[in-house]
């Protein structure tokens, strides 16, 4: 510890396992690491309990009891087929099993609902209550929680393995802190590229950037074209009630947008033509009567605006889900969340969910089963690694670059304008949902210029600048991977390649900081990134 004292950081902590991010995945990881006997620190940018997309929503978990076994076989077979070649049955069985075993253990802190037949329902939980319960559980295991403490960068030992992280206590005079840890779990969520997706404001892709700086690669970053309906000008991207919506154009003509898998795409096309309005009059009366006790934040929006959604027509929009209800993230080598970097694990939306979701959105069921299970696996594995370490005292090198340590002369960066330009590439339907090679090339150029500016000139100082670097890195991997996938598959739709190409029934890896690369994920270990290499 004598070495550490020389650093200017004011708060310095040593622990076995550090968890970055306190949403569903981070909280389950902290619980499991502590259960495995590790000393655990969990740091969240916001507050563990309210931050992240878990807290503001109501995750329904993928839930199939083990008995009869045929039910799980059928669920996995369906998902493999729907996943269009990118899913893996083994991983699906693992998360189904882990979710089924683990979720009910929260009953000490969460009051699971009882259905009209008196059966306990575990799979569907309400976000704020769920995250409040997880916080209580985490605290009950003696985990140290650092709230309002965004992690800014990872720290590496001289062998490249990860030995901690640095961040800032933003409600404590922006005091710097540093955690030295035997292993680190990144659970910092996905990113919506700052769309108004409910609960996604703190998720700026920081966990992806930090992983890449440590040497990890991404997988499935092209699958960011997920969108969710919300009343215009609101964040309420909770789609249940819209399963019964009737849609109209500006002239009052009814639109043909039946409930089903391509409803979002049809709605996007309608929104390209003009404003779209909707009513929920067809929602069954018994559901109308209970909507405020099913999802209390949904009717709240209408009530405050004086709209009767069952009679009035209100304007709707689509918010981008990015990698949240999309599926890309840090490539996981093993179901335990191990990355290609020793000492670094990932869980939840910070990890790629292709193996459990396939090429389609994991929202609605698989994502939360994955967030829970991957948290449990990664927390347990990180605890094991930390415990097996002989000596902790090592010099640690900070890995942060873009937005912290510029290559060149520091200059002021207009963070707000840069963020708006990222949004302008990642949100419009004509760029990110209905993709074309030419459009992606133009986006790439814009994003490269922005990246160069931030990487060359952005200096440490604001959390917002570091977040902007993470948004840019994530957008660049997404655009480059989308440009490399010359076909349409699941969430990835290319107007210039509308069909599926059987040769591309494989996962695409991506990575790189100043030079972005994309490569086919080959089953053989000898594969070299290079096949599909694009530098942009």
């Amino acid at each position: 510890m004598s070495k550490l004292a020389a650093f200017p950081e004011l708060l310095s902590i040593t622990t076995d396992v550090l968890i970055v991010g306190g949403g569903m995945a981070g909280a389950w990881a902290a619980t499991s690491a502590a259960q495995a006997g590790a000393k655990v620190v969990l740091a969240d940018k916001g507050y563990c309990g309210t931050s992240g997309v878990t807290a503001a929503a109501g995750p329904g978990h993928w839930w199939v009891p083990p008995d009869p076994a045929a039910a799980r076989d059928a669920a996995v077979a369906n998902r493999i087929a729907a996943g269009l070649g990118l899913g893996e049955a083994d991983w699906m069985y693992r998360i189904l099993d882990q979710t089924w075993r683990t979720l009910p253990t929260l009953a000490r802190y969460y009051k699971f609902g009882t259905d009209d037949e008196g059966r306990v329902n575990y799979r569907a939980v309400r976000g704020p209550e769920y995250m409040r319960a997880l916080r209580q559980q985490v605290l009950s295991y003696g985990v140290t929680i650092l709230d309002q403490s965004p992690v800014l960068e990872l720290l590496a030992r001289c062998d490249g393995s990860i030995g901690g992280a640095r961040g800032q206590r933003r409600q404590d005079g922006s005091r710097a802190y540093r955690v030295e840890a035997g292993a680190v779990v990144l659970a910092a969520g996905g990113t919506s590229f700052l769309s108004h997706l409910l609960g996604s404001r703190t998720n700026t892709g920081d966990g992806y950037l930090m992983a890449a700086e440590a040497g990890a690669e991404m997988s499935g970053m092209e699958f960011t074209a997920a969108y969710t309906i919300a009343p215009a000008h609101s964040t309420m991207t909770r789609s249940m009630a819209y399963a019964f919506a009737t849609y109209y154009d500006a002239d009052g003509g009814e639109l043909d947008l039946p409930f089903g898998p391509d409803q979002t795409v049809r709605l996007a096309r309608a929104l390209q033509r003009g404003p779209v309005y909707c009513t929920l009059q067809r929602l069954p009366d018994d559901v109308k009567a209970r909507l405020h006790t099913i999802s209390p934040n949904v009717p709240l929006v209408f009530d405050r605006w004086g709209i009767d959604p069952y009679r009035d027509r209100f304007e709707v929009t689509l918010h981008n889900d990015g990698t949240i209800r999309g599926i890309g993230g840090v490539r996981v080598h093993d179901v335990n969340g191990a990355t290609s970097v020793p000492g670094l694990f990932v869980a939840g939306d910070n990890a790629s969910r292709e193996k459990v979701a396939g090429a389609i959105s994991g929202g609605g069921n698989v994502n939360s089963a994955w967030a829970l299970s991957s948290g449990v696996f990664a927390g347990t594995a990180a605890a094991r690694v930390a415990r097996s370490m002989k000596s902790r005292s090592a010099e640690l090198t900070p890995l942060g670059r873009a937005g912290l340590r510029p290559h060149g002369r520091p200059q002021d960066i207009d963070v707000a304008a840069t963020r708006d330009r990222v949004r302008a590439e990642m949100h419009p339907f004509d760029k990110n949902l209905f993709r074309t090679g030419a459009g992606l090339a133009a986006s790439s150029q814009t994003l490269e210029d922005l990246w160069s500016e931030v990487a060359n000139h952005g200096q440490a100082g604001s959390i917002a600048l570091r977040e902007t670097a993470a948004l840019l890195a994530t957008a660049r991997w997404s655009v480059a991977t989308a440009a490399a996938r010359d076909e349409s598959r699941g969430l990835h739709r290319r107007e210039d390649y509308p069909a599926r190409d059987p040769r591309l029934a494989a996962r695409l890896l991506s990575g790189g900081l100043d030079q972005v690369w994309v490569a086919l994920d080959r089953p053989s270990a000898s594969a070299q990134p290079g096949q599909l290499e694009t530098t942009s």
Partner: protein
Amino acid sequence: MIELIVAERCTDCGACIEVCPANVLDPGTDGLPVLARVEDCQTCFMCELYCRADAIYVAPDCDRRVSVSREDVLASGRLGQYRRHSGWDEWAEHFPNEQWLMETVFRRAGEAAAQSRAERPEGLGGKK
């Protein structure tokens, strides 16, 4: 975005400052939390849930500021409404958490859509 903290209700407990995921609020010199960075507000309504004094009003508008009058909000009965309907804290026995119904609603919607497809004339609502 968060638009109002009703001064006479606020007990200055600090909970909203602590739990706000987007760090929108600062402690004020006179006790009342200050809406310091409203532009960062993610319109998640979490501060309302954690305010036991029902002093906070978050407008559903996430991309525009709206003017909110203290008198109207007080008269509307909407302060504390989200906490109440959530069955949070002292409301637990009054409003059951029926989140579990969600999957049933989706299932019924799927069935209704399938039925209306079956009843539709050829050519309408097909895949496109």
